[in-house]
């Protein structure tokens, strides 16, 4: 499992900055980006350390706004 590599993509404009994904990511991949505001007026989430992503889908499962698309790097 530690070998599994995921790539999270975020539809940033749909994000409401609720932080649920951040709270459930086991690898601390995500963080809220307080440096900017999206069109909806929220601080959106951002991929902080994409390389740690294990493609566990937790973020995608909990995100109420379905912002995530997750790819699996299957060549590893």
């Amino acid at each position, binding site marked *: 499992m530690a070998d599994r590599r995921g790539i999270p993509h975020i539809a940033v404009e749909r994000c*409401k900055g609720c932080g649920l994904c951040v709270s459930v990511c086991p690898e601390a991949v995500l963080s809220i980006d307080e440096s900017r505001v999206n069109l*909806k*007026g*929220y601080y959106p989430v951002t991929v902080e350390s994409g390389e740690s992503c294990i493609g566990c889908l937790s973020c995608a499962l909990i995100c109420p706004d379905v912002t995530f698309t997750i790819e699996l790097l299957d060549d590893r």
Partner: protein
Amino acid sequence: MFSERILCAGFGGQGVMVLGKLIACAAMLGGREVTWMPSYGPEMRGGTAYCSVVLADHPVGSPIVTTNATSLIVMNLPSLERFEQSVLPGGLVLVNSSLIDREVRRDDVLVQTLEANKIAAECGAPKAANMVMLGAYMAIREVIDQNHLKMAFRQIFGTMAMTSFELNMKAVRRGFESVDTVVVTRKAA
């Protein structure tokens, strides 16, 4: 006949409702007829919150300010987008430039910008940007005085902790004073 019609607008958490209430209440205590009317309902959620305040020397008919505002107090960009056209020619647009980085496009209104969030933070009351705006409004439109404002605080917040009262009043004062110190853009009426 005196009639001041104010729109206060911003994000949900920015305290625009309270800002409007304080103006209305202080004006009432100063002997005016007043109304305050909120936007309400689920569309408020996360979106723009705003309220209408009318001050007059005769009973107020419609409490809703739509296209005929004499003053607009805007705390964020979406609110400016939405309400810029609502101000009557010659009216006032009071802009929180901490969160609004564009200019007012109208050239037939009086524009006052101030960095309310920054000033509030400087006062040690980062959430009191609305109070800063209130102070600035009081400085420009001389319709309410500080004494009535203090009484209005009591009426609206009941027994409020003295410290937070003092902090809020400080923010109001700094807003009041800032009208002379910050850059003022006045366009021809």
